[in-house]
């Protein structure tokens, strides 16, 4: 039995910010079903802040909970603040993750950062 924390289970059962943003300012995709998990993050940016975040995730309980937690943690933050969110922060906020599920928290932070970079790239053009 995977021993998930209460917090993980709560986010898994009631994930925040699930969905897509049709006219997203940035999109970050990471992983693929072959290796187990896949996450897509969509962001809306206003005044250098993450006005809205949505995600879609294919994966285990941890992957879904991490996505939810990342979206919650980043929403309303400045891009700089959001870029500083680490996988460790997320795992900690979730009350820890089982050892063999720690890689899921990497995916979550990475997907968010990818979306921000996508936005910055687009803006830079």
């Amino acid at each position: 039995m995977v021993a998930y924390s209460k917090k993980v289970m709560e986010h898994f059962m009631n994930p925040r910010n699930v969905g897509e943003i049709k006219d997203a300012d940035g999109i970050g995709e990471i992983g693929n079903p072959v290796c187990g998990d896949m996450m897509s993050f969509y962001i809306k940016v206003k005044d250098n802040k993450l006005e809205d975040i949505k995600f879609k995730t294919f994966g285990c309980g941890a992957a879904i909970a991490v996505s939810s937690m990342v979206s919650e943690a980043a929403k309303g933050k400045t891009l700089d603040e959001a870029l500083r969110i680490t996988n460790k922060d997320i795992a900690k906020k979730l009350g820890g993750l089982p050892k063999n599920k720690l890689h899921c928290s990497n995916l979550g932070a990475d997907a968010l950062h990818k979306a921000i970079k996508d936005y910055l790239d687009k803006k830079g053009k």
Partner: protein
Amino acid sequence: MNSKIKKDSKKRIFFDNASTTRIDDQVFKEMESYFRENYGNPSSLHDFGELAKNAVESARKKVANLVGASAEEIYFTSCGTESNNLALWGLARALKGKGNHVISSVIEHHSVLNPLKEMKKNGWNISLVPVDKCGLINTKDIENEITDSTILISIMHANNEIGTIQKLKEISLIAKKNNIIFHSDGVATAGIIPVNVRELGIDAYSFSAQQLHGPKGVAALFIKKGTGIRPIFLGGTQEKGRRAGTENVPGIVGFGKACELAKIKMEDNIKYISKLRDNLINGIINKVKDVKLNGSTTDRLPGNVHISFKYIEGESILLMLNMEGIAAASGSSCTSQALKSSHVLNAIGLSPTMAQGSVLFSLGKYNTVEEVSRLLEVLPPIVKRLREMSPIYKE
């Protein structure tokens, strides 16, 4: 989500009979006195010992009877893994003078595959034959692998994941023709469908109590009379020196009773469980789009429902089912300790996505029509929810 159901253990639904089974009350009852009053060691020279010894020997007959063997051909072990390890190491070492080549298959349980891997490191030559999309071995593939140095063939009877039943009789004829010892892992099979080691022509057969409503901690290896085998555990003279260690008397007694009950009720159970299985399969296919039944439609264990749900991942399905009080299993990499998806699903050529989305519902005699209905009620909205969350889902 209805958390009441989760809390009330009586209402929890167990669709994971491939992982273990609930002990039959009659089995437990039979064991009780061998814990509490008749606790002797079968080797001892007094009434306590005699009672224990008689109980073990009476159980040995019942266990033998389940698979059509004679009692003297049954050796008690502690689990299916031990039976398989004993069979492989024990038979191979006994046959070492004759050759060093072993044939098995890619879909064996890890308690066969991992000893074979270790044997390979120790100089044995190991061939693993493939399976088709249904998980069936082409016996020609076995025949083609045979060389002069082939001493042992080990092919599982039914697969514990996708439920495919192999054609053991055909394989045993090939083995016999080539004078090769034939072992079969029957852990997922014995007690579930009829097994007769004589008719099947098998030399060694592993099976386990906990898979047939008996206790955990006890299993058996059938070894045909006259077949040489080297023990793994050395020590006392128990089990004619082939398995040292004080006997797990209550466990063995329970195993005996469980085998007796399984034999008596086999036909009824098969009918009952297959019907539940077919209802469940049809129900899922009717109610949920983009699903695939894995395994064989004809050569299939009565209780096996192995389904892939496209676009979503198995562990999250299991977690949501568990919140509804329903227990099942998955071949998803996320559910495995090693984070690898099931080697069986890879072997039948299932795409990685579909392997990730696999769920095994394994049914047993204690499951009911109501439980199947409840699963069919609860499952579609779970799949829907997870698909709505999935980045790869397209309606």
